[in-house]
């Protein structure tokens, strides 16, 4: 199959490219970032998905399937910019897919869609609304992109749309929200809170996308690997030191003393769990994960051992 991947030059996109090539697919990438040392067999277009030239790629290549990974998820990019990229990009993907006969579109979303709140249930199911959004407006564009992608299910009935809400990734690339949060020697937590975190190995993340391309499940699906684990266990198993701080102190200390920077709204995500029920995806695709929680944490620790404090 010819598979077009907007966002291919990201860390996970590169891993995906290799897996798709192994499976004998033709891989076409679109990304604003360069993909240096792209494996031969990858046709790379260094351009913005929202630009005219991207449509030309669709027209010429006529892909069978599109895996849309070109969403900005990290929070350092200004909100307004992210809005434009995430919503404009998603719109372009679906419009071009409809115009040029794409059979299957996979939207790679995030499980943070559900938000973290004191009264939200463990193991969210797909039909829940995104109630946590009020406490974390910085995530609004990702939620909107997720819902917009879901609306393709009725707007473009000829395209099989799979909206995937993926849990955090951990693994040797050290890419992703949780991985970056764990990077330092000391990891701040909020005193008195130890939420469950749901994560999967990067390789399993990529495999889930490959499985989705094969099975073409129509609808919205949570995607997870092993069961969630409390943050304190994640910190100790990756060889870090847990630094529990009282809530108010926590906000003040962020970005200092070697602690990571985080927006205010993210604090609820360190207080309360976001975990998902991924059984519908498993039923639709027979997906199984390869790395359990222990192996996933170990692979992160081996790639990113605890940094030694500067003297």
């Amino acid at each position, binding site marked *: 199959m010819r598979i077009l991947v907007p966002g291919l030059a990201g860390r996970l996109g590169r891993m995906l490219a290799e897996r798709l090539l192994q499976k004998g697919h033709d891989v076409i990438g679109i990304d604003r970032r360069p993909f240096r040392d792209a494996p031969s067999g990858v046709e790379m277009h260094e351009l913005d998905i929202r630009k005219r030239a991207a449509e030309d790629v669709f027209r010429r290549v006529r892909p069978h399937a599109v895996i849309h990974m070109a969403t900005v998820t990290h929070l350092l990019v200004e909100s307004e910019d992210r809005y434009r990229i995430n919503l404009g990009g998603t719109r372009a993907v679906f419009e071009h897919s409809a115009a040029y006969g794409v059979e299957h579109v996979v939207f790679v979303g995030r499980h943070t869609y559900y938000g973290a709140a*004191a*009264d939200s*249930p*463990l*193991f969210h*199911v797909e039909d829940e609304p995104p109630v946590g959004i009020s406490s974390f407006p910085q995530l609004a564009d990702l939620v909107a992109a997720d819902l917009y992608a879901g609306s393709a299910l009725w707007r473009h009935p000829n395209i099989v749309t799979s909206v995937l809400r993926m849990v955090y990734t951990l693994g040797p690339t050290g890419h992703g929200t949780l991985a970056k949060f764990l990077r330092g020697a000391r990891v701040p937590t*909020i*005193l*008195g*809170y*130890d*939420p*469950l975190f749901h994560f999967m190995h990067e390789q399993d993340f990529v495999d889930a996308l490959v499985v989705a391309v094969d099975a073409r499940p129509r609808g919205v699906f949570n995607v997870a690997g*092993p*069961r*969630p*684990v*409390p943050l304190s*266990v994640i910190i100790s*198993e990756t060889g870090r030191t847990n630094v529990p701080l009282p*809530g108010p102190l926590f906000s003040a200390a962020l970005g200092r003393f070697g602690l990571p920077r985080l927006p205010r709204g993210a604090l609820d995500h360190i207080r*309360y*769990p976001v975990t998902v029920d991924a059984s519908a995806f498993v039923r639709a695709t027979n997906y199984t994960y390869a790395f*359990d*929680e*222990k192996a996933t944490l170990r692979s992160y620790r081996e790639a990113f051992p605890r940094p030694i404090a500067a003297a």
Partner: protein
Amino acid sequence: MRLPIDPEVRERVERLELPWNDFGLDPYGVSKNYLGVYFTALRFFYRTYFSVESYGIDNVPKRGRVMLVGNHSGGFALDGIMVTGSMFFDMEPPRLVHAMAEKFLARLPFASGISSRLGHLTGLPAHAERLLADERMLMVFPEGSRGTAKLFRERYTLVQFGTGFMRLAMKMKTPIVPFAFLGGGEAVPTIANAVTLGKLLGLPYIPVTPWLVAFPLPAKLEVYYSEPMMFEGTGAEEDEVVARHVEAVKDRIARLIDIGRRRRKGEIVPLPTARRSQRSLEPEGRAR
């Protein structure tokens, strides 16, 4: 920091039939370690301080989904805590009781984390259904916080029952084991409830005893379990149908309370609902 865990407790935690992972955690984040510390602390209160007696424990299914439904007795969660002890110390094999934690708990630091590590998730319908679908044991007090607010003179009464538990049991095809809890009113004789003070601390109210704080006296505590009751249906029935079923459970609990009261006065009263009446006249867990 590792707190000491009693060897008997450790052995019983190992025998809980739960899907532990390598970290000693179940999928909901229930922790072997937390359970060990909790039951080690509870052991003294359960066995010695209150010397809790469990009657009719054979009525409780050893495996599979089940709801324990009982009365509130005592100004705070003393009753619930002792029922978790009863299922852990007196059942063979021991079972983990999942209580549904009050929603205000989820906002409190420490309380939320600790209660969820012990299996007491926030009281949401989604949690209750998921736990039952997973063949767990759920404990429900349909009186809600109205029930824990009972004063000393009201200690053997029942206040209004909510109906949510019945709809849940019907929807999830779950047997209900009614139980009566006796003695909580003597252990924590509430003379008043300080509502304003409670609000300030983020609690619904704070029970006030003659010695002000709600530290419990070593009163004799007893739990009477009755035979399981099964209610057919989907849980979406009309209110009056559900209310009838709720009354049946409430009546059963009221009868158990009455029997327990008379026994506390020294009358010899057999337990009418026990399957093996001969054995269940003897308090469980004392035999060993």
